[in-house]
């Protein structure tokens, strides 16, 4: 990845960007997100199969200084996240430079977001057989089995909200769980509180999830909560032909309507 380091150095030294969000060598053999702001730090940048964090999460966290041009190293899920965030008017294209990394590890210097959109739509966007198999397994359960499955999983949750924090689409400044007038979601991590949270999380991400699986990867308790949002993505694709992370302009399926909708109630 010498090319990546070279590019980073160039971008920083001619002040095209002020910060690069990428990956560096972490501890105990892990890779981790890194923030590079001077050319001499660029040598610490890495990119390999361990670089799985969805860096798009940092673009909406308001941690990076304002009025700063940011370059972000974007794997395929990061590209899709950026397109979704842009379609939801959360990103200012003038301040973000996207350095894409293709599946065969080539660097793609995107001109603009539309360029990313074009690239994404040239790729295979179908759910992988592995993803389909995971969902099929849950679908095959009876209602009672499924209820019990999720009850067991949710009861383990202690509400550290790593799923929320790691998700680029969870950018609300006041999350429904932090709202207390009224208290929509019970605060404690008892069975009810956990159900309320995970159902709300899934519904708020329904069809907006781009399938990076960061939520369950971030979960210290390995709850398979990515299955919920994945299943909803599949359903929304089936019902409305909408998939997140593929279009800058197509409105989100659940917040719009079309006059020629096949359902009569909406007309």
């Amino acid at each position, binding site marked *: 990845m010498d090319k990546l380091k070279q590019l980073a150095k160039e971008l920083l030294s001619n002040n095209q960007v002020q910060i690069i969000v990428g990956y560096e060598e972490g501890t105990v053999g892990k890779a981790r997100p890194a923030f590079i702001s001077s050319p001499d730090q660029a040598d610490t940048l890495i990119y390999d199969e361990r670089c799985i964090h969805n860096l798009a999460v940092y673009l909406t966290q308001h*941690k990076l200084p304002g009025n700063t041009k940011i370059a972000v190293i974007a794997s395929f899920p990061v590209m899709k996240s950026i397109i979704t965030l842009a379609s939801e008017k959360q990103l200012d294209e003038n301040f973000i430079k996207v350095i894409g990394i293709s599946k065969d590890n080539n660097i793609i210097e995107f001109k603009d977001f539309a360029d990313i959109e074009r690239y994404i739509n040239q790729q295979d966007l179908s759910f992988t057989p592995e993803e389909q198999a995971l969902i099929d397994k849950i679908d095959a359960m009876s209602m009672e089995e499924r209820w019990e499955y999720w009850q067991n999983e949710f009861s383990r949750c202690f509400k550290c*909200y790593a799923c929320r924090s790691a998700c680029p689409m969870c950018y609300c400044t006041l999350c429904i769980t932090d709202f207390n007038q009224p208290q929509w979601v019970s*605060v404690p991590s008892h069975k009810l509180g956990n159900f309320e949270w995970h159902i709300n999380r899934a519904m708020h991400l329904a069809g907006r999830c781009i399938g990076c699986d960061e939520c369950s990867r*971030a979960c210290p308790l390995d709850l398979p909560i990515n299955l919920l949002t994945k299943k909803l993505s599949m359903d929304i694709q089936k019902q409305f032909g909408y998939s997140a992370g593929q279009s800058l302009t197509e409105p989100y399926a659940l917040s719009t309507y079309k006059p020629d909708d096949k359902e009569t109630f909406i007309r």
Partner: protein
Amino acid sequence: MATENYKLLKKESLPALFDKLTASGKTIYAPVKNGEKTEFDVVTKYSNDINDEYIQTVQSLKGTVFPKVEKLFDYKSDKTDTSIQEPDFSKFPQNVLWGLHPCDAAAFRPLDATFRWDYDDKYFLTRMKLTTVVGLSCSKHDDYCFCTSVDISPASSDGSDIMLTKNKAGDYLVEIVTEKGQEVYDMAKELFGEISDDKESYITDVPKKFDLNELNKNLDGSFEAPYWLAQSMRCIGCGACAYVCPTCTCFDLQDEGAANKGSRIKCWDSCGFGHFTLHTSGHNPRETQSQRWRQRILHKFSYMPDRIKVFGCMGCGRCSRACPVDMNISENLIKIMEEPKNE
């Protein structure tokens, strides 16, 4: 290496001991293998799934004395009459925590110090009183472990009522540390023998990464240091580190139910959350993640030793293993000691 005298608990005696504990009304928590991982779980009898060679679990047993959700009382209320029903403290469970490593056993000390600081927390103290801790020396460690840096050793019995060390034969060298430990021993004397052995030879060697008192001194005057921001850039602001930590005690108080009937609940919270210190006015004294990261470190390594005479970190490494973005605590502590406090 010195040979000393220990009680001996043979591996084949474990089922009988577990049966006795269960029969006497104890709830046993033990490290149980589940696929690749080992987690503490309630067991009623001994089984081969109980893992005495695990490195560390994801979750500690903090929840047995400081549950993630603790009902403080029920209330009933109409316009002019209200009553409060406290739980029956005599019915709190008698727990035996089996096979905790020394870091986890030592973690009860800071919990105790916090929940006893001038005001006794009856819920915690009752649970603690009914708890027997059976510690287990560490035969393995990983790169996240740093107990020796926080003045704990992989063989220390501090915090344990009984201390076990597994020997070459797979049996346990037993030290009876406290009266509570003696009670368990007295209950099942016939299962224990005597042995002379060298405990130290079975114990893993955890390298010391930093000096705790030096760190503590170094943190004086560090409030405005530039490293808080630099270290916390990656932090995504979740509570994973706090919730897997065996000593974190931040909590929330919440009412649940209707005006006429419901409960008040004490539940885990984390100083890492943005809304933790938010005033109703909108003002937030710890508004940014770097301020919250600073609070986490200073609380454990500066405020706690200063105010309640105990450090808030046992070197178990759980926070570092659990962190989704590799905020490795020992790495950051070492950096704090190396970096200047002022720009």
